[in-house]
C-alpha cells in the first residue's frame, strides 16, 4: 500500500495525492466552466447578474468571465495532474494561494452585490467553494509529494 504526505513513493498517479487532487478538481472546474454558460445568457460578461437566473444548480452564481476563469483553472489543473507530481504540486499550491486570496478578498468585494467591484458575480456559496478549494489545494500542495519536490530540485541543480 502506498503511503502519503511526506513519504509518498514515486509519482505514479494513484500514489500521488497532488496528481489525484489536481485531476479531480481540474475535471470538476472544467465541467462547471462549461455548464456555467447554460446559466449566463443575458448576463454581462464581467459584472454582477441578477442573482436569480445565473445560478448554477440554483446555488452558485456565475457570469461569463467567471466561467472562463473556471475553464482556465480546470485546464491548468488537468494538464498538471496528468503530467507529473512536481507539476501537480506546484499548480495546486499556486491555484490554492490564488483561491485563498479570492475567497477572502472576493468576500469583501462582493459586499455590495450590485457594485462593479463584484466583477465575477460572486455569492456566498461561491465564497465557501473557493475557500474550501483553496485549503484542499494548499494543504495537498504544501504537504504531500515532498519527494517529487526534492526530485525536481535535485534535477534542476
Amino acid at each position, binding site marked *: 500500500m502506498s503511503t502519503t504526505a511526506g513519504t509518498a513513493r514515486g509519482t505514479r498517479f494513484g500514489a500521488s495525492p497532488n496528481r489525484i487532487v489536481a485531476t479531480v478538481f481540474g475535471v470538476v472546474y472544467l465541467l462547471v466552466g462549461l455548464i456555467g454558460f447554460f446559466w449566463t445568457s443575458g448576463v454581462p460578461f464581467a459584472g454582477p447578474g441578477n442573482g436569480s437566473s445565473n445560478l448554477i444548480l440554483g446555488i452558485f452564481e456565475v457570469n461569463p468571465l467567471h466561467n472562463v476563469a473556471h475553464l482556465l483553472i480546470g485546464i491548468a489543473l488537468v494538464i498538471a495532474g496528468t503530467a507529473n507530481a512536481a507539476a501537480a504540486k506546484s499548480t495546486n499550491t499556486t491555484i490554492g494561494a490564488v483561491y485563498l486570496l479570492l475567497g477572502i478578498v472576493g468576500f469583501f468585494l462582493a459586499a455590495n452585490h450590485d457594485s462593479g467591484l463584484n466583477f465575477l458575480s460572486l455569492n456566498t456559496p461561491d465564497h465557501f467553494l473557493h475557500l474550501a478549494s483553496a485549503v484542499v489545494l494548499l*494543504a495537498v500542495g504544501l504537504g504531500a509529494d515532498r519527494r517529487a519536490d526534492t526530485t525536481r530540485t535535485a534535477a534542476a541543480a
Partner: protein
Amino acid sequence: MATLIRTWLGLGALGAGLVHLAVAAGAPPATLVPLVVLGVAEVGWGVAALARLEVPVPRVALAVAVVAVVGVVAALVLNAGAMAHMGSVSAGGTVAGAPAVPMLGAALLDLGCAAALAVVVRRGRRPDTRPPGVWSYLGGVVTGAAVVAGITVASLGATPVGALAMQGMGH
C-alpha cells in the same frame, strides 16, 4: 495519524487567522493591533505546519491557542456582565469592540487546534510509524477543509462587511 493531525492543525490555524484578520479590518485601534498580530501569526504558522514535516513550536502554539480562546470567553463574560449591570441588552455582543460571532468562530477553530496540539505535545517527537494511505489522507484533508471553510465563511459572514455580502445572496 500524525500527518493528518498536522494537516488539520494547519487548516484550523489558517481559518482562525483569516477570521481574525477580517475582524481586525473593522475593529477599534486598541483591538486592531493584537488581532492583526494574532491573525498574521496564525496564517504563517498554519502554512508552516502544512509545509513542514513536524508541527512548528508546538508548546508555544498551544499556549497562544489557549490564551486566544480564554481571552475571547473572558471578554464575552465581562461584556455580558457589564451589559447586565447597565440593564441593556445587546443583540450581537462584542469582544473588546469586535463582533462576538466571528470571534467565537475563530475561538472554536483555536480550541480545535489547542486540543490537537495537546495531543502533539503529549506524543513528543516520536516519528509517525503509521502514515495514512493516499485515499485516507485525501479524505482527511477534504473533511478538514469542509469543516474549516464552513466555520470560516460563517464567521466572515457575521462581520459587519461580511453581513452585507451575505445579503447579496438573496438577489
